[in-house]
């Protein structure tokens, strides 16, 4: 039997100790997927390679015959939005995957216990501040937060980082400053509201979150393997799992862009409460990169500044593609609780900050 880059975790061991995610460094985390049929894995490996080649072959073969059916404007618009969401995310995803693999392979297991404050409630704002240092947008922060949780960082602390990093980094704040150069208070309001909402979610998790909601897929067992190999295997795992789910989010976002008419927004712009809700929902639907959303917010001129602040705070924290990526990284029972809670908290905090500052 050959040595493999990746091993399945021992399900029996882990289901007995789900709390391992919270305590100290964890090597294995409970898996969401049911155990595979081990006897068949060899044949199924070959079979899936075969299926992959058949799929690729048919894509190329059907290119000509199908082209007549795929040239309707709606299909093409969907395709452009879908492909552009994925292409744009790839560099940021690659960055996130490199950082997350480096955390898994090169950071010593006890590192985060030493550098983070012992009291988790204090570690939350530290994680929020650390988010300032990641120059990217949300696609990269999901695998990094996953890597932090695997390395033994308390989930509440890692989630604060997950939510704060996309909105608080200098690149995004600079883009916001350019788009809103006439109203610089928007930059301050965005930074304050994003930091508050991210920390609120971190503390909420520390208070009420349950470790058993998090079910991360098994990842490379890096013990024993040479470090460079473990690094590559971890990158592959994280890219495939985060990237695959990113695709689901992008499919949905592109679909909604095609079927939902732009006019629905006009109806809601005049009522302040509905406007806040509309902007929050729009941020979720559009699934924009946090580096670009300020520019779209600037063009939504029929809406008040505070409702556009809600758009800028909710979008980097929760949208369709982020939600899908969280399902892939942390499991369904996590995402279905964390996503809606993030939506409500981000909307409430940003509406309050907007009311005070704008």
């Amino acid at each position, binding site marked *: *039997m*050959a*040595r*493999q*880059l*990746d*091993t*399945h975790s*021992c399900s029996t061991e882990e289901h007995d100790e789900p709390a391992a995610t919270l305590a100290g460094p964890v090597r294995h985390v409970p898996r969401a997927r049911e*155990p595979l*049929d081990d006897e*068949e894995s*060899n044949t*199924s*490996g*070959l*079979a*899936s*390679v075969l299926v*992959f080649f058949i799929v690729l072959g048919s*894509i190329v073969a059907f*290119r000509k015959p199908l082209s007549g059916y*795929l040239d309707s404007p709606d*299909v*093409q618009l969907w*395709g*452009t939005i*879908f492909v552009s969401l*994925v*292409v*744009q995310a*790839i*560099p940021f995803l*690659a960055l996130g995957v490199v950082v997350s693999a480096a955390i898994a392979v090169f950071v010593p297991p006890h590192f985060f216990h030493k550098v983070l404050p012992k009291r988790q409630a204090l570690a939350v704002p530290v994680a929020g501040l650390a988010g300032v240092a990641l120059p990217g947008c949300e696609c990269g922060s999901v695998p990094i937060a996953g890597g932090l949780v695997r390395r033994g960082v308390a989930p509440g602390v890692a989630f604060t980082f997950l939510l704060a990093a996309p909105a608080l980094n200098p690149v995004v704040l600079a883009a916001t400053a*350019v*788009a809103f*150069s*006439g109203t610089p208070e928007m930059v301050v309001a965005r930074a304050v509201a994003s930091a508050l909402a991210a920390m609120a979610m971190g503390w909420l998790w520390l208070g009420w979150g349950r470790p058993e909601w998090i079910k991360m*897929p098994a990842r490379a*067992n890096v013990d*024993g393997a040479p470090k460079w190999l473990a690094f*590559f*295997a971890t990158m*592959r795992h994280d*890219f*495939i799992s985060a*990237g695959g789910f990113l*695709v689901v989010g992008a499919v949905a976002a592109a679909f909604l862009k095609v079927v939902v*008419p*732009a*006019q629905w927004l006009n109806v809601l712009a005049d009522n302040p409460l509905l406007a806040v809700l509309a902007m929050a929902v729009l941020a979720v639907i559009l699934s*924009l*990169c946090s*580096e*670009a959303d300020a*520019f779209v917010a*600037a*063009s939504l001129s*029929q809406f008040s500044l505070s409702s556009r602040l809600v758009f800028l705070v909710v979008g980097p924290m929760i949208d369709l593609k982020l939600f899908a990526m969280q399902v*892939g990284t942390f499991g369904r029972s996590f995402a279905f609780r964390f996503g809606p809670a993030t939506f409500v908290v981000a909307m409430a905090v940003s509406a309050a900050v907007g009311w005070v500052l704008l």
Partner: protein
Amino acid sequence: MGVVVSKTVQSMVMIVVAALVLQMSFTDVHLRYVKADLQPYLVASGILLLLVGVVTLGYEMWQSLFVAEAKPSASDAACCGHSENGSGPRSAWLLVLPIAALVLIAPPTLGSYAASKSGTATSVAKQQNPRSIYPALPEGDVVPLSMLDYAARATFERGASLAGREVKLVGFISPREGGGVYLTRMMMMCCAADSRPIKVGMSGDVGKLKSDQWVEVRGQYVNKFDTDPANGEEIPYIKVSSLKRVEQPENPYDI
């Protein structure tokens, strides 16, 4: 079986995705989907993903061909004792979707259909320059302007800095609700998902123009405005003195 994804396929998916990203960024196809500035990052991430795919695939093939008799490592045995080609995230199959979309649909640059679905976004300029103070146009007989620059000067200072000057705009044709056409260009910040149209009406005889035809228009500011039904913003006009059909520019998006 079936839904299981072997490690080998994961590496292969990565290699195909990386190859497409690299091919796209070297043939300028990426300009349909993302901002030109992103190209070096696309190339860098394409190389990285290719490397990861090739190294992991090569290592596993080498292992299964030449080290097939090696004893399973302690951790494998302790864990589940199963063999190579174990499965990984099934989401690998999902990454086939963008590959298929790219090859089968070959999605084009956003055009008149996308433009007619959303409202003109001239107010972006208002947000950046709320007092609407614009520098004087540069010297010259004909001044090339971006669509946003023209639309902003026309809308927010009623053409004060445009008075008496001949300007040149490049855009494509999109339909106007209730008949006629607009000169249009999509403006992009990061990727096509965040792009918004800038629309300018054309007064004067422009002949019959098909949607998505790219044109170069010369003309002067005229005090005439439409209201975009999609978002209630004003759409300025230009009085056309000459119009010629042109090829789609290398970078089809406005700033």
